[in-house]
């Protein structure tokens, strides 16, 4: 196998050329691998954020949310309902005696009014593949000491003078004169402090019936707003339909520590809230009148960051006094194409309900992730073509330079009897091996690049924009800010298909670009090849 010996000699003894061509190809290959992998990572990150409802097995959310803007247009019945669902009336005196410690949780529906859960059973089974009920409530938690709700006033004890007759007035004047005289006789000035006291004493002596003292009395009176050490705090709880596995406000897949529900009186805590409050799996939490066991910590996706605490639906319904009532219905339609139709059928079933589809929620999302993903989606094609072209040009140019340097060699081989085909085979094999070398190096470089990028934990921001139809759902629980921003970590996966594509770029690039130069060289007439050097 002389051609293999020649191939080995050519690649090893011209190692500089071998290295430069294969490195050039490797660069292109690595760039393709990195670009496609990043783009895939962006796409999947974008998908996980843009289609959050799908992440909870849902493509439609049905709720009776009333927006703050529509408050004025509410009919009387809805207004009354809205007010009763959000009324906080606290009679602290019923919680114990003044000075006792107390905690009080009030459950409010906010803008998401509740409805009978049996409505859910009426959904069109032909359009709806699956559905889950949910109850999302805002909790106002109060704790502190029961204040004294009364204040004490002490009155009376003053000496007052009565209305006098002419006779009494005369007696008074005489008594006054005699008292003054007596005081002066003692050498005191009646206007001084000491003089006034002496004068009072003298007056009592000379006019004993002219004054009286009121009886002492105690009054108790209710006071205005209580001001004590009571702390108020708000958080969100969600009741999860445990009857469904693949659909619900939170799914077992989102639990990062501990377990999913396996009984009642259990609670799964949102990781962010758990961190803020120092809650761990196994802790006990008191909510309303129930003590709940923390069974898991969950990391819900952006759109599912609805609640701080997740409870079994029945438990929450019982604690909040909303037996058999829900305020969210998560719906999965039979297939992706019928989402719109399903939405329309649900609108008929729930007059006045808000039907939010995943496409609508997706429109509300913005941020660097979306920009980056859109940018990549837009340019990935062009970038890849440019890189592939660059790889071809680099490989082609290097091959042309290398082949041109070997013109005499090729001419000599042809003169001593090498046919076009044998020359071509030799050059093709060289290009093929260079391509494989470039592919191997490129795959290595690409994988290292992905490894390094992953090590830097690139985080992209995602914002949920102005609340719109379904955004009430989010906004209500996420404070009053206009948008909610969260970070999504870019996780670049090692995809064997991408690696294969990247490697192929080097091989095909080398064979095609190098092949062109080789083909031309193989067809060169020996005398031309020999003459070109003379």
């Amino acid at each position, binding site marked *: 196998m*002389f051609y293999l*010996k*020649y191939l080995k*000699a*050519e690649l090893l*003894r*011209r190692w500089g050329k071998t290295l430069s061509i294969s490195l050039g190809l490797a660069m292109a290959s690595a760039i393709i691998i990195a670009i496609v992998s990043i783009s895939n990572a962006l796409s999947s990150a974008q998908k996980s954020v843009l289609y959050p409802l799908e992440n909870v097995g849902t493509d439609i959310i049905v709720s009776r949310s009333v927006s703050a803007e529509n408050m004025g247009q509410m009919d009387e019945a809805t207004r009354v309902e809205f007010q009763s669902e959000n009324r906080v009336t606290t009679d602290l005196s019923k919680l114990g005696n003044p000075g006792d410690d107390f905690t009080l949780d009030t459950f409010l529906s906010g803008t998401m009014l509740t409805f009978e859960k049996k409505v859910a059973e009426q959904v069109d089974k032909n359009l709806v593949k699956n559905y889950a009920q949910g109850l999302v409530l805002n909790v106002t938690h109060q704790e502190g000491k029961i204040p004294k709700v009364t204040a004490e006033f002490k009155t009376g004890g003053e000496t007052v003078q009565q209305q006098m007759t002419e006779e009494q007035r005369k007696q008074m004047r005489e008594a006054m004169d005699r008292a003054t005289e007596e005081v002066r006789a003692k050498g005191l000035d009646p206007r001084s402090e000491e003089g006034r006291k002496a004068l009072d004493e003298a007056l009592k002596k000379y006019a004993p019936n002219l004054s009286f003292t009121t009886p002492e009395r105690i009054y108790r009176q209710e006071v205005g707003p209580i001001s004590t050490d009571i702390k108020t705090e708000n958080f969100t709880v969600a009741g999860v339909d445990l009857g469904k596995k693949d659909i619900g406000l939170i799914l077992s897949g989102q639990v990062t520590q501990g377990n999913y529900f396996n009984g009642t009186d259990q609670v799964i805590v949102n990781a962010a809230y758990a961190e803020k409050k120092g809650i761990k799996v196994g802790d006990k939490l008191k909510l309303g009148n129930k003590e709940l066991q923390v069974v898991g910590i969950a990391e819900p996706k952006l759109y599912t960051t609805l609640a701080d605490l997740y409870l079994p639906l029945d438990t929450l319904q019982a604690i909040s006094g909303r037996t058999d009532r829900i305020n969210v219905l998560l719906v999965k339609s039979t297939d992706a194409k019928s989402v719109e139709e399903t939405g329309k059928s649900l609108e008929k079933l729930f007059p006045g309900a808000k039907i939010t589809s995943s496409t609508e929620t997706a429109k509300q999302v913005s941020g660097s992730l979306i920009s980056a993903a859109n940018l990549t989606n837009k340019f990935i094609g062009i970038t890849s073509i440019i890189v592939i072209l660059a790889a071809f040009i680099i490989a082609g140019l290097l091959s042309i330079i290398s082949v041109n340097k070997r013109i*005499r*060699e090729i*001419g*000599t*081989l*042809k*003169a*001593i*009897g*090498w*046919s*076009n085909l044998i020359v071509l085979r030799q050059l093709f094999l060289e290009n093929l091996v260079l391509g494989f070398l470039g592919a191997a190096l490129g795959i290595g470089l690409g994988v290292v690049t992905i490894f390094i990028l992953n090590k830097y934990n690139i985080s992209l921001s995602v914002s949920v924009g102005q609340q719109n139809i379904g955004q009430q759902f989010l906004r209500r629980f996420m404070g009053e800010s206009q948008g909610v921003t969260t970070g999504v970590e870019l996780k670049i996966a090692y995809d064997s298909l991408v690696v294969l594509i990247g490697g192929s770029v080097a091989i095909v690039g080398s064979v095609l670009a190098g092949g062109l130069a080789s083909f031309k060289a193989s067809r060169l*007439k*020996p*005398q031309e090849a*020999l003459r070109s*050097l003379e």
Partner: protein
Amino acid sequence: MAIIETKKLSKTFKQGSEIIKAVDNIDLKIGKGDFIVVVGPSGCGKSTFMQLLGGVDRPTSGEIIVDGLDIAKIREDRLTKLRQKTFGFIFQNYNLIPTLTALENVQAAIAKHSKNDSQKVISTLDQVGLDERVNHLPSRLSGGEQQRVAIARALINDPEIILADEPTGNLDSKTSEEILKILEGLSKNKKKTIILVTHSEQAIKIASRFLKMHDGKIVEE
């Protein structure tokens, strides 16, 4: 009987608007075992003439009959085979493949590879006086050694005709003498037909025929 015969052999080149007659209407018969030396000033067409004879180049007109076959008219693949089997080429610049060793360079020319390739190559190299340094790359060999390798390569398929284009052009006189002796030996002992293009005086002395070219024509024989 002539091993090569040319009839009205011409080769013209275009250089700008000028047409250059490198080989001009040459009729020549070369007998088997002839040792022909072709001399002439630079650019007289002797190298082109030799390339035409060896089937490396194609004539503009005329015939080149090798063993009764007009090689001017045969297809490229047949010509390639003919070059490999009938002709052995020796160039002024040795034209060795720089990445191959002396041994491998000779091996590169073997028409039919077999298990005995290496032995065959070593004995051929030995024949031309290169029994050592066979595993060296051309860059590690002297000019004389490189030309010996080139001669061995020309001989490896045991061709009938050796075409040597100024093989001593880059060599000192002592080495040139050694190379010419090898060629002389090939002619005398192996009855090879040798066509040698040269400027060397020594070569003329050992030649059986002498051709002088000028402006593409043979002006003296």
